[in-house]
């Protein structure tokens, strides 16, 4: 909220001083109505669209999850928490949960650290600022689907360039799709490629609003650049770091397209590799809901994931705040 004169542009400007006491004309009443209600009409489309296509489906998921519900044939009866009971004993669910957490940690932690470093680099008053910034943002505007296909090739077992380069150093080719850890590394690298630059720009924006004299006095005291970075820059942009951590959590826990398209041959089944070694929760939700048409079960997955995201976001919130305030 910036400078905003209170109560301006209202009807009071017109009717002062009141010359006679007439009943207000219809024009005047229309004007009052306009001033009072049109602002709400102006913001209504957002709330209508979000309500119908965002909030309602999300909440209705909870209701569906309490039923035996087939995607095409509809509800087959109320079953209470049966879907959840089944879910918690489903090894595929726990597998997908483990993969989701692993992929989330592997892609988010190095990504945000790299973004911090990159932002610090960009903050050093270089020439060609606009050029570097654009270059860093470029990966973020490329569609995930295209990125996934390119990376599927880069990490190919037989002809992929990553194995080619490893081979030059005498390292045996890695089967990036078959091994759990290898597939997680490859998929995380995709996420990192797309989002590091974006987050770096967010950090950069925050860094530029840190008062310069804080740096100067620290430099005068003989603090090293490294020390200045950790004890001045990072604490100063704490709210921004918190923001990116939470946004990355919400996005990372819902990872879908990158792993889904990582295995081109298996895209149709959506199992994330022959042994489900890189199937995430949203992929499992997709498989159950749109391949096996079990809407009730799929909704139970969605609701559990929703709770999980809330939990992790809250956890991140408290943790990041504590760590950052120590720094």
């Amino acid at each position, binding site marked *: 909220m910036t400078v*905003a004169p*209170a109560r301006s*542009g209202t009807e009071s400007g017109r009717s002062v001083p009141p010359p006679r006491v007439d009943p207000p004309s219809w024009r005047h009443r229309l004007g009052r109505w306009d001033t009072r209600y049109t602002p709400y009409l*102006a913001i209504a489309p957002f709330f209508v669209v979000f309500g119908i296509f965002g*909030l309602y*489906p999300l909440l209705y998921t909870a209701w569906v999850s309490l039923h035996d519900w087939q995607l095409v044939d509809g509800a087959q009866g109320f079953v209470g928490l049966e879907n959840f009971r089944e879910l918690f004993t489903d090894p595929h669910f726990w597998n997908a949960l483990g993969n989701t957490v692993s992929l989330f940690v592997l892609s988010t932690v190095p990504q945000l650290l790299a973004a911090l470093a990159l932002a610090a*680099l960009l903050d050093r008053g270089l020439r060609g600022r606009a050029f570097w910034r654009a270059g860093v943002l470029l990966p973020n505007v490329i569609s995930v689907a295209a990125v996934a296909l390119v990376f599927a*090739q880069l990490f190919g077992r037989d002809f992929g360039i990553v194995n080619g380069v490893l081979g030059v150093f005498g390292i045996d080719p890695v089967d990036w799709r078959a091994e759990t850890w290898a597939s997680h590394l490859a998929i995380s690298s995709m996420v990192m490629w797309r989002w590091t630059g974006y987050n770096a720009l967010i950090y950069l924006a925050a860094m530029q609003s840190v008062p310069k004299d804080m740096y100067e006095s620290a430099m005068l005291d003989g603090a090293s650049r490294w020390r200045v970075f950790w004890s001045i820059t990072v604490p100063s942009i704490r709210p921004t770091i918190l923001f990116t951590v939470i946004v990355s959590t*919400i996005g990372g826990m819902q990872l879908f397209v990158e792993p889904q398209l990582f295995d081109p041959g298996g895209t149709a089944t959506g199992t994330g590799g022959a042994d489900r070694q890189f199937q995430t929760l*949203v992929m499992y939700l997709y498989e159950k809901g749109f391949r096996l048409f079990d809407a009730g079960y799929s909704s139970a997955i969605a609701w559990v994931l929703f709770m999980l995201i809330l939990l992790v976001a809250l956890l991140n919130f408290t943790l990041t705040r504590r760590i950052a305030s120590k720094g």
Partner: protein
Amino acid sequence: MAYAMLVIVLVASIFPLYYSFLIASKDNSALGDAVPSLIPGGNLFENLGRVFDTVDFWLAMQNSLIVAGTVAVSNVVLGTLAGFAFARLRFPGSNSLFLVVVGTSMVPTQLGVIPLYMLMSDLDWYGTLQAVVVPALIGAFSVFWMRQACEESVPFELVEAARVDGCSVLRTFWHVAFPAVRPQAAVMGMFTFMTAWNDFFWPLIVLDPNDSPTVQVALSTLASGYYTDYSLMLSGASLAVLPVVGIFLLLARQIVGGIMQGAVKG
């Protein structure tokens, strides 16, 4: 030293794109080389031709254009209108309502995909473009971005003067506010266009890959063959990426500015 590191980052940013184009220009048999050559081959047009033979890529392009274009225009109009209301009109609850708008961007609506799908089939919208367009007509990000733009570029006095002269709220919006934020609205529109063009998850679910694909859905069709044909896949990927890279090269400075500004105020 800083420049050297930035150059490395830049190469890493660009390399996968170049590589995609590289593979697209080669015969599949050239992929067997132990250390792949970084010089393009001569098969680009042949591979592109195969893309159009395998899937109806023209239709996909046309659909993506309709979807992304409509979504962009609608976000510009509705986003600017809402942004103007939040920035320049006083009404009870405006601050808390704006916080709600910002908060909604954190709601993982993707998880409501099952009921959303059922809603679309009740409406008989499965496989139609409006199933993709309507939910995206106005997003929190556009409202946020345009509120910022109005705060910056629409003078309060001008709004007030128009209102005193008897201009209705909507006329004031259209004749005073909108012209003042046209440049920002254009950038926001292009950004929305790119986002809509790139969208994958929801179109994959609600569109018919054979009947009404968008470009991204067509890409996944190219990838889902039993035998993975990388030249074919990456020719399609290169095509799909082209419009977005074009827009980005034109507007990079403004898009970077918009993102960084949003970060500070947010």
